C-alpha cells in the first residue's frame, strides 16, 4: 500500500513536470513564430536590399566604365574585355564566348542565363546607396520598369539570383555570397516594394 502511494505520487509528479516542460516549449515556439513573421520596417528592408546590391557579386557587372570587374577585389576583367554595344561584349568575342548559362566548376568560369553587363544607365560603381536606389527606381534609367517589374527582376531573374550560387573561381575556391540570405533578400525586396520603395533620408 505504501509502495503504491509512492508510485502514484511519482507518476503525478512526472505528469506535472511534463506539462510544465511542454508548456514552456510551446511558449518558446510561439515567440519564435512571432519573431519570424514580424514584418520589418521599410528601412530595415531597404538596408537588406542595399547590402546585397552593393556586394561584389552584383557590383562587378554594374561598372561605371566599359570594362566589367571580377573577383572579390573587383579588379578590371582580364583579357581587355569590354562592354560592347549591347553589354554583351564585342563582336569577335562576346560574354558567351566564355560564360554559359551555368557555372563551369571545371574551369571556374561563372555562368547564368543572359550573362552580361548592366547597361551604362545602371552603373552603380562609385555611387552611394541612395543614388543606386534612386537609379533603380527611375524608369528612365532602369529600362522602363515599374515597381512590380523591379520586384520581379530582383526576386526572379536567374542572373540576379546567381549571386547566391556563384560557384568556384579559377583556383577552385568558392566565391563569396552576399551578406543576406537569398530568402531574406526576396522577402526584403517584396516588403520594401510593398511599402512603396521608400529611400530613407539621412542615409548615405
Amino acid at each position: 500500500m505504501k509502495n503504491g502511494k509512492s508510485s502514484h505520487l511519482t507518476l503525478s509528479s512526472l505528469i506535472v513536470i511534463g506539462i510544465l516542460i511542454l508548456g514552456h516549449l510551446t511558449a518558446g515556439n510561439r515567440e519564435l513564430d512571432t519573431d519570424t513573421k514580424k514584418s520589418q520596417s521599410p528601412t530595415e528592408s531597404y538596408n537588406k536590399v542595399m547590402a546585397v546590391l552593393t556586394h561584389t557579386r552584383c557590383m562587378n557587372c554594374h561598372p561605371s566604365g566599359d570594362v566589367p570587374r571580377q573577383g572579390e577585389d573587383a579588379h578590371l576583367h582580364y583579357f581587355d574585355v569590354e562592354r560592347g554595344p549591347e553589354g554583351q561584349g564585342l563582336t569577335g568575342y562576346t560574354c558567351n564566348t566564355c560564360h554559359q548559362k551555368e557555372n563551369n566548376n571545371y574551369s571556374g568560369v561563372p555562368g547564368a542565363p543572359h550573362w552580361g553587363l548592366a547597361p551604362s544607365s545602371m552603373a552603380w560603381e562609385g555611387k552611394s546607396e541612395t543614388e543606386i536606389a534612386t537609379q533603380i527606381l527611375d524608369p528612365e534609367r532602369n529600362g522602363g520598369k515599374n515597381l512590380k517589374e523591379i520586384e520581379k527582376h530582383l526576386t526572379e531573374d536567374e542572373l540576379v539570383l546567381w549571386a547566391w550560387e556563384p560557384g568556384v573561381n579559377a583556383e577552385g575556391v568558392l566565391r563569396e555570397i552576399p551578406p543576406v540570405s537569398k530568402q531574406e533578400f526576396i522577402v526584403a525586396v517584396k516588403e520594401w516594394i510593398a511599402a512603396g520603395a521608400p529611400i530613407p533620408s539621412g542615409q548615405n
Partner: protein
Amino acid sequence: MKVTFTINGESQSIEVTDGNSPLLWVIRDGLDLKGTKFGCGKAACGACTIHVDGEAIRSCSYPVKVAEGKNITTIEGLSENGILHPVQQAWKELVVPQCGYCQPGFIMATAAMLSEISNPSDEDIDKNIINVCRCATYYRMRKAIHRAAELTSNNS
C-alpha cells in the same frame, strides 16, 4: 547521357558520362579532332576557340551538354570543298605561325570576327582578338587579318 550535334557538317551522337565535360575533351579525345588545342583550361588563352552556331566560344569551358542540337565548326571544318578559308589563306601566305600551337584558336577567332566586321581596323583587331600567343606572332597576325579581309572582299 547522349549528346547530339553537328560538327563540321556531320551529325554526331556521343555518349558521355558527365554532361559537364568540356566540349574540348569530346572533340579531341572522343572525335579525334586534334586541331583544337588545350591551352589554359580556364577560357583565358583562346587556344581552344571553335565556333558554335557561328559564334566563337572557348571549348575548354563549354559543357558538352550545352552543345546539344548545335552546329559546331572546328579548324578542321573551316575550309569548304578543299578550298582554304580566307583566314587560312592569309595565314599561309604571310607565314604567320611560329610554333603554331595557338594558331587554330586565332584563326577561328579571326574568322568569327570577319563574319561580323568585314574590314576591321587595327582597333577592331585589338579589341576583338584577345587570344594569347606565346611566340608573340601578333604583328604577323595583324597583317594576316587585314589580308584575310582583302581576300574575303575579293571573293565576294
